[in-house]
């Protein structure tokens, strides 16, 4: 086991202890629901689930992230993407549950998972995230956990000056908050399915 894998194992132990070791995990409260390798055989592919922060258009919605870890981690940043599915796949997922189920679940806390990410700093079609700490300002002192939490913070603090989604960034620049929130909500309702 090399030093990258050792550090990842250390991070995995810490994050699992904090997520599932205590009943009221502060990590869950700050929006991180799950963070773990996709399979036991590969430490370099992780997935995460986050919850949109309260009093933002993303609240009560879960989002999945894919994490690709370079062999030189932590000297190089991990590649983190929002999971974006094709319209067709989302329709299939939505079709699995009846309309009534969706309505019921929409009222419960953390009801659905959205498979597109409408955000000024996220590419709508690829899920690519524009965040300085994942590119030029990366430092090995960051962890997967802190990087994911930085993405949760980005949801409530969009940065319209470096957009990957020009339409949403323009609404934000025009300070049309009503339209901005309504458009995000529309996409979320449109592309969500019940989380499994």
């Amino acid at each position, binding site marked *: 086991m090399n030093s990258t894998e050792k550090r990842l194992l250390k991070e995995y132990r810490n994050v699992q202890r904090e997520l599932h070791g205590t009943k009221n995990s502060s990590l869950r409260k700050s929006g991180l629901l799950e963070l773990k390798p996709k399979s036991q055989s590969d430490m370099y592919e992780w997935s995460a689930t986050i919850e949109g922060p309260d009093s933002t258009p993303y609240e009560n919605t879960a989002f999945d992230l894919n994490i690709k870890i370079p062999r030189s981690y932590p000297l190089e940043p991990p590649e983190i993407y929002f999971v974006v599915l094709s319209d067709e796949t989302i329709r299939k997922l939505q079709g699995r549950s009846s309309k009534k189920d969706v309505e019921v679940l929409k009222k419960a806390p953390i009801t659905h998972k959205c498979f597109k990410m409408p955000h000024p700093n996220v590419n709508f079609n690829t899920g690519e995230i524009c965040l300085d700490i994942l590119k030029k300002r990366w430092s*090995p*002192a960051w962890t997967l956990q802190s990087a994911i939490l930085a993405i949760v913070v980005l949801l409530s603090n969009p940065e319209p000056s470096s957009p990957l989604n020009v339409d949403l960034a323009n609404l934000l620049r025009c300070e049309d908050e009503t339209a901005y929130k309504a458009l995000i909500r529309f996409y979320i309702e449109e592309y969500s399915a019940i989380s499994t």
Partner: protein
Amino acid sequence: MSDQMDVDSLEATPTEQSQQQQDNKPKKKRFEVKKWTAVAFWSWDQSNETCAICRNHLMEPCIDCAATGKDRSNCPRAVGMCNHSFHLHCIDTWIKTRNSCPLDSSDWSLKEVIQN
């Protein structure tokens, strides 16, 4: 000269007093110390105790040295001008990527290397 004079007089005073006390028979003690609890504070001489790069404790060898079974005497720690410390091996590999402190992203310059 005056310093020496002061010292002399200071030394003289207690002996004079003790002589006086002996002359006047032992006085009743004014108070007696029954219990005395000393409290000391200490802290590391560094602002962080784990290496932010490999996440091992700085008093232990870095993740690479630990893997190859080397002991900590072969793995010194490096302290920067910003007072953040890392294993020398760890910071050496990082500054090839970018010459900045991983913790505060100020320019990295080495203040000292401490042998464990």
